[in-house]
């Protein structure tokens, strides 16, 4: 009895964690797209012009080349974040699928364990 309760709790934990992770992942992927666009723009920019590059909360005047370098390190960090988030999403999903098999075997159609019911 209590073992089933634990399984259900764990499933619910994974489910809410998965929601958080997916939100975070979405934000990061959006950021990465911005970085990709910015990289294109900077590559097209005139070598001798200065661009305003945002570092933290303030803008600094940088040459496109220097801005690109800084961009590259920022992008590396974000790609690392995305990789680790994806890894954790996968962990949640495998955990949930395992529990789903166990719980479905026990409760059949009496239990509703749909992943992401809010997703249309």
């Amino acid at each position, binding site marked *: 009895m*209590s073992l089933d309760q634990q399984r259900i*709790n764990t499933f619910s934990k994974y489910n809410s964690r998965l929601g958080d992770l997916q939100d975070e992942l979405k934000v990061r992927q959006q950021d990465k797209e911005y970085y990709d666009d910015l990289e294109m723009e900077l590559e097209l920019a005139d070598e001798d012009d200065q661009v305003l590059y945002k570092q933290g*909360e303030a*803008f*600094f005047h940088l040459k496109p080349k*220097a801005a690109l*370098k800084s961009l*590259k390190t920022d992008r590396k960090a974000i790609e*690392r974040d995305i990789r680790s988030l994806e890894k954790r999403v996968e962990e949640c999903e495998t955990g949930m699928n395992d529990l789903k098999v166990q719980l479905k075997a026990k409760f059949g159609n009496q239990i509703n364990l749909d992943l992401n019911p809010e997703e249309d």
Partner: protein
Amino acid sequence: MSGQTAPNSSSKKALGGIAPTGLHADTINKLNARGMPYAPFVTNVDDFVGGQEAGVEGVMKKFEEMTAKYRYMEVNLQQKRKGLEVKIPDISKTLDVVRFLEARRCKRLGTKPTTIPKQPKNDDEPESEADEDDAASEASDDSEDLMDEVDELDAEDAEEGPESDVKSRNPLKTLYELNDTLFAEAEVEEDGNVGLWLGANTMLLYPLNEAVLLLSEKLSVAKRSLRHTKEDLEFLREQITVMEVNFARVHNWDVKRMIEVDMCAFTDEINFDVL
């Protein structure tokens, strides 16, 4: 594992004085990593309530109280989490700028930028440790990249004429946020110090390397705290579910008992009529 009941030990704390019989042994008097108590799981309602004749009102009230306590903690931690989620990007943005300034200055003076000492991580999960090691090693790459960036800046300075005086070099011009979406231009006087806003209406001047160290420590403390807060929130959710299940189990048990009592009365009546 299931169905085990606790021996009638001295563990009275579990339910604020209610006898711990009929509870799952794993859930009595246990605390999580931050000292929050596990919700006791009722395995045997009959034993727990104290037999068919016992009243459930007291138990139900206790359950409601405990659930309310968990909910109170949950609200507090949710606020803490929100606070940290604002604070962390703030710190990391500040750290970015300070590192940028430091890289510029180090290049000028020909010194090495500060390397961040590894934080002692005794209570970290191995997985996140690996992530952070990864981050640390790449961070050193990052600082090298920053150095390159500053190389470029210096190369440009040199084209304009060899000047040894620090002050006559290309000044660092910046646009800073004066107010929401309003930016003003400023020239930064680079004297190797930076003012950090410490809160409580205080700003303190730090040498760049100390600022880097301070900020990176604050950042890792805040990140760890956020991770713990998230864990605790998951824990609290689980305990609230357990308490709700307990409540439902005792309530259903009570309803079933009432029906049985009614049925007995009903059967008696019928028997009476037949006679």
